[in-house]
């Protein structure tokens, strides 16, 4: 369906990534946010708090991130599209509720504007060091989807995509920004509502008697009901059967947890979004994401100007990891170069997916600023030798 025009601020704007993310959420139909202030993400909910009363919705500032990350889920079961916004320390506090959303199949979006860590780290400076936490931070086996924008325009476009994936797969979607993208001001074009595709909730049409809250169907994603409609359903974080009833047996666990994983994993090629340039005849491919991809672009351009054959692979979907495509590329090239604002996170996935077919070179950075293009260039040159 098309976006509700009330939430769409059609026009050409000069805004930062945080504000663009807020507009994306509004365009996607989010009418509820619960948050707790934390740099460098706060501007998203500040804007939401100012905008949402004009389009019909609620922002509530909670007492902490534990509360924010579950209040939004209560709102989802009440019928809203909802999200929360945070950064490293708050993201750590939200982990249990990411698991709850995965287990109860609550469609929602968690925005993490990454800053330097561990602990309080660098509150006002960038990092990309929550990438593994986004995937594995809550206990137990589960799958999530994570997207990584590299511009304010993408903060708008991909936030809509994040909500759409959340509804389609009934998973928590991690929107992995970073401080630079969040605070960078650029042109953001917001189209007409009629040009914005929005995925509606997968609401059941079954009768009260026939409805199974966690009944499986062809695509592994159950149909949802909301509180107050008369279905009288049960939702629990315990291992549960199709009725939603707790059933703590290895058999039920196996059926449930495999389905939670497979509903995303089986569609990972379709979920994978990436941008490629010059990959077909490259010797070296630079794999990057988020703000680092923009620094990497400079290094790639210089290297190609010097006669090297360097391609670009920019991940937009980071989880599930686009392993099929990385393996195809690995079979044809000498090496991958992976710059990231951490000491080596997504590089492990690149190396695993390359499966020995191509070498993998990390360009680490502990965070606090972006890479210098020459640092990436140096590794590109080394990798080519």
């Amino acid at each position: 369906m098309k976006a509700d025009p009330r939430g769409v601020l059609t026009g050409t704007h000069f805004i930062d990534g945080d504000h663009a993310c807020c507009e994306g959420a509004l365009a996607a139909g989010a009418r509820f946010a619960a948050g707790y202030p934390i740099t460098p993400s706060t501007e998203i909910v500040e804007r939401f708090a100012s905008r949402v009363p004009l389009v019909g919705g609620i922002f509530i500032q909670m007492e902490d991130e534990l509360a924010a990350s579950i209040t939004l889920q209560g709102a989802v079961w009440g019928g809203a599209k909802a999200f929360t916004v945070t950064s490293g320390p708050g993201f750590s506090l939200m982990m249990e509720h990411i698991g709850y959303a995965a287990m109860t199949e609550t469609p929602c979006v968690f925005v993490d504007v990454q800053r330097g860590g561990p602990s309080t780290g660098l509150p006002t400076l960038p990092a990309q060091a929550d990438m593994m936490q986004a995937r594995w931070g809550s206990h137990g086996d589960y799958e999530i989807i994570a997207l990584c924008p590299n511009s304010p325009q993408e903060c708008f476009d991909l936030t809509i995509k994040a909500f759409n994936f959340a509804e389609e797969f009934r998973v928590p979607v991690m929107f992995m920004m970073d401080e630079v993208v969040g605070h960078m001001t650029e042109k953001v074009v917001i189209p007409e509502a009629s040009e914005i595709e929005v995925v509606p909730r997968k609401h059941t049409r079954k009768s009260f008697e026939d409805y199974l809250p966690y009944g499986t169907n062809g695509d592994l994603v159950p149909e949802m009901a909301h509180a107050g409609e008369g279905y009288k359903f049960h939702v629990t974080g315990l291992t549960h059967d199709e009725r939603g009833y707790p059933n703590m047996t290895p058999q039920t666990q196996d059926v449930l947890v495999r389905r939670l994983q497979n509903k995303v994993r089986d569609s990972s090629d379709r979920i994978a979004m990436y941008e490629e340039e010059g990959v077909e005849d490259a010797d070296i491919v630079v794999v990057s994401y988020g703000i680092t991809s923009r620094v990497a672009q400079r290094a790639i351009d210089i290297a190609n100007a010097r006669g090297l054959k360097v391609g670009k692979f920019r991940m937009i979907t980071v989880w599930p990891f686009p392993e099929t495509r990385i393996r195809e590329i690995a079979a044809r090239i000498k090496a991958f170069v992976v710059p990231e604002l951490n000491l080596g996170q997504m590089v492990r996935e690149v190396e695993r997916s390359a499966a020995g077919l191509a070498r993998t070179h990390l360009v680490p950075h502990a965070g606090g600023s972006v890479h210098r293009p020459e640092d990436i260039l140096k590794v590109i040159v080394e990798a080519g030798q």
Partner: protein
Amino acid sequence: MNLVVNPVEPFLRTDRMPHIWCPGCGIGTTVNCFTRALIESKVDLDSLALVSGIGCTGRVAGYMKLDSFHTTHGRAIPFATGLKLANPKLNVVVYSGDGDLSAIGGNHLIHAARRNIDLKVICVNNLIYAMTGGQTAPTTPGRAVTSTSPYGTCEPAFNLPHLVEAAGAIYVARWTTFHVRQLARSISEAFQKKGFSFIEVISPCPTLYQRRNKLGDGLDTMKYYKEKSKVRHGAPTGDVGLTMTGEIIVGKFVDRDRPDYQTLLRAQLHESLGERYVDGTEAVCG
């Protein structure tokens, strides 16, 4: 032959019986009272949602034939807050234990009371963590022996009615599982209130609390509740703290009115934005 159906039965997920609660446990009694309050107050069951946290009382949500949510440990209140704000037509009841609501969830308890979120909170207080084997809770009184305080507790306990009154609750009552009619009546009354209501129910855990402290079995505890409870409506909540074997002050302590969160929110936005304000009640849910 006419089968006599227990009036409570239509409210239960009978396909989930037997329940997990121990013989002599008081939680089942509170569920009975809750159900009788639902019958008495004629609450629309389709628009009633039940939210629990984790623990023995946290299992109540799973046994009631209602839209019911068994959430994470300590977070029933913030989940219920989101549910209520997104769909204000719902009557939202939080049903959980003392450890869940006042220890791990203590911050949410006081903030929901401060905001005056329109929730009815039923707190079954068995004075310990029961599900995990009888550890000390913030509510454990006196020098009670628990599995994590084998030589007796030394911490002062929370006086929950005092805490929630200070934080802003508009309705505060306490009963024991001996006071079944009074408890049912209090729950019915809470359904007539708009705002943060808190009902504490003192309840036995014969398996882990009474046994370890040589306080007898479930029946002995009922005798204790009967003999040592004193009904004092309107008692200053500062005076109602519990001891191990002393008297239990019960009754309705607080019944007052002040605007709930959503009323305040709407008024504020109307005042500030005038015509530009779009009341979110329907738009929230698309």
